[in-house]
């Protein structure tokens, strides 16, 4: 089995995620980009777990944990975004600069 094609897909997904986090202005899209990065990590974990023939299936198990954490994170993130949108009628994160000096 060759692992390269999985790694290439994962790297592409991760790069797209990075791009989205750094560039997109909409908070929802930033969260989605974060999900993309996590997915890339999951692909890597599963691919290496399968490639190394791990008897404990550690890669797959970790992927499940990451999915659970990602679900929780996106839940909280979307709740915050909804609240911010309600308060300010906007989800543009450039306008959210309250945490400065």
């Amino acid at each position: 089995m060759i692992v390269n094609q999985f790694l290439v897909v994962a790297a592409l997904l991760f790069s797209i995620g990075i791009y989205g986090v750094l560039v997109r202005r909409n908070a929802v899209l930033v969260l989605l980009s974060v999900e993309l990065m996590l997915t890339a990590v999951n692909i890597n974990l599963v691919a290496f777990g399968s490639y190394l023939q791990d008897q404990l299936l550690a890669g797959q198990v970790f992927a499940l944990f990451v999915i659970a954490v990602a679900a929780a994170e996106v839940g909280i993130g979307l709740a915050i975004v909804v609240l911010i949108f309600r308060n300010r009628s906007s989800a543009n994160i450039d306008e959210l600069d309250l945490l400065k000096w």
Partner: protein
Amino acid sequence: MTYLATSLFLYAEEGAEHAVELGNGGVLAEWAWLIPMVPLVLMFGVLFLGRRLPMKGWELAEFSMLFVAVYGVALFIANANQGIHYEGAIEIATIGSFVLEWGWMVDGLSIMMYTVVGVVGFAVFTYAKGYMEGDIRFTGFFANFTLFAAGMLVLVSAPNLLQLIVGWELVGVASYLLIGHYWEDHENNAAAIKAFITNKIADVGLFIGVIIIAVTVGSFRFTDVLDAIAGADDALIQVAFWAGLTLFIGAMGKSAQFPFHVWLPDAMAGPTPVSSLMHAATMVTAGVYLLGRMFPLYQNELFAVDVKTIIIIVGALTLFLTGLIALVQDDIKKVLAYSTLSQLGYMTVAMGAGAYTAGLFHLFTHAFFKALLFLAAGSVIHAVHSNNMSDMGGLRKYMPSTYWTFIVGSLALAGIFPLAGFWSKDEILASIQHDAGHGGGAVASIVLIVAIAGAFITALYMARAVYLTFFGEYKGEGQPQESPRIMTYPLIGLAVASAVAGFSNMPGIFTGFTDWVGARIHVIGDHHAESINFLLAGLGLTAALAGIAAGTRLWRADRETQAARDTFRIPVLYPLLERKYYIDDFYLRGIVNTTKGPIARAIDWSNTYVFDGVVNGVGAGAGFMAKIVYGGIDQRGIDLAVNATAAATGEAGEQLRYTTTGRVQQYAWALFAGTILLVVGFLIFS
């Protein structure tokens, strides 16, 4: 820890050694620690409970003395049956290899002292109840008095030099309190302080001696020290002269030997029972006791045998010079005080002549008749309310009991056959003569003449005291009355003791006392008389009778006191005696005033200008240094560094805070860039 030391007891006339087996005294000796402890404990009883008791604490004090007397006599009898040597000790503390012990010595010497202190103490305490009746500090007096006796018992029961010092100082402090009993009078305070300080000066000698011995032998215990002497310890031989001399200086203070004798006559400021006990059983006998306890040190040819010459000369000077002063005193107690000094001189002479038994025998007999004389004098003072013999006279009619007992005491003191003083004085004369033929040389021969002259003087001043007090016309005020029975009974008891005490050692007939006080380990070369020396006994007796005859001639009843005094008023000698050889004046003007005047001023000057100058200089220097340190280093150096650090941190924060933009994506950029940098770094450097 108790241990028995039953070993060879060396008792010899010039080298001949008899080995006598000593007993351990059994239960009686094992419990002998009660002898000093009962008075010590009851002293506190008197002090704290005395006021609430029906007899104001006197009963406790009296009981303690009765206890000591009974115990002492019981031990005395046991010792007479079989010689006792027992040492008990308990450990108090261990400091390194040194073990501090409290012990009790039960041997011939200490048993004799227990008996004397107990019996005389019992008589004096009984008497004191009558004498001190109505005194405002009655209870306190008996607390001090018990402490005084207890201190002496601690001293004589000590089996080591350290405990001896404890007893020595207890006696000293109790004597200070008792002499100053009537402290309302400044003179009495002065007398108490004088006694204390004179003793303290001599005590320095004792301390040095004890330190020398303890360091050399490595033990404070008498047994160890005497073992070292018996074993001819080389290290001890080297220091023996100085150890012996300094111990003797200590003994000179307590036993009031010339030139430390000045405190004793002034100690008459205390109540008469105090004088009585002090002169008979406690305090002044301590020095003679110490010489007796350390006797082998002086007697062994290898050790401090040279000190004996000093001892005999000091003793002879004391016995002669102070005896003469007694002739011109008007205060009856002072006559007796100087007489005590003179008799202590005899004891010291005996010790110096190497006569252990004779010295202690005189201590023993003297204790009874001197206690008696003081108590009788106290009885007279009680009746006429004056110490001065010029206020007395003719008391024979008014106070028969006092008169007769005083006569017995005086005759015993003068050494008239067959009373106690005769036997002990004769023993001393015989010892001196023996010493003159065995190493004492010309000094001992001269001392022998001085001692016989002393017997004459003793009889002379006692005759004077008797005639001025009891004969002629009464010159005081009021009608003198005989003292109550509580005062006369002790007088009678002591008179009987004074009469018979001498029979305990009659050379050639019965020498029980020699064996009694000889019951201890290591007594070497005691020069005691084996048989009576009729020539010396006759000479001594003749001198005493001549003294009485001369006294009768000078101060007989039908002459006026003043006239008799004039008869005696020899131009140069009389003022010399009246001023006590100017010794007190010398001490006061020569030593005290010099110290108070120029020396104190010089010290004050050096203190003000030298020591204070140094101290102030150091202070000013420290202040100057502090200013430099504060202004220069602290303020400018350290504070600058601290402030600069704080300012730099503040400025950096001011500049750097603009990086905190609040834009999340900028942070994310930084994070990402940092990660890239780290990854690139790892790739390059790994």
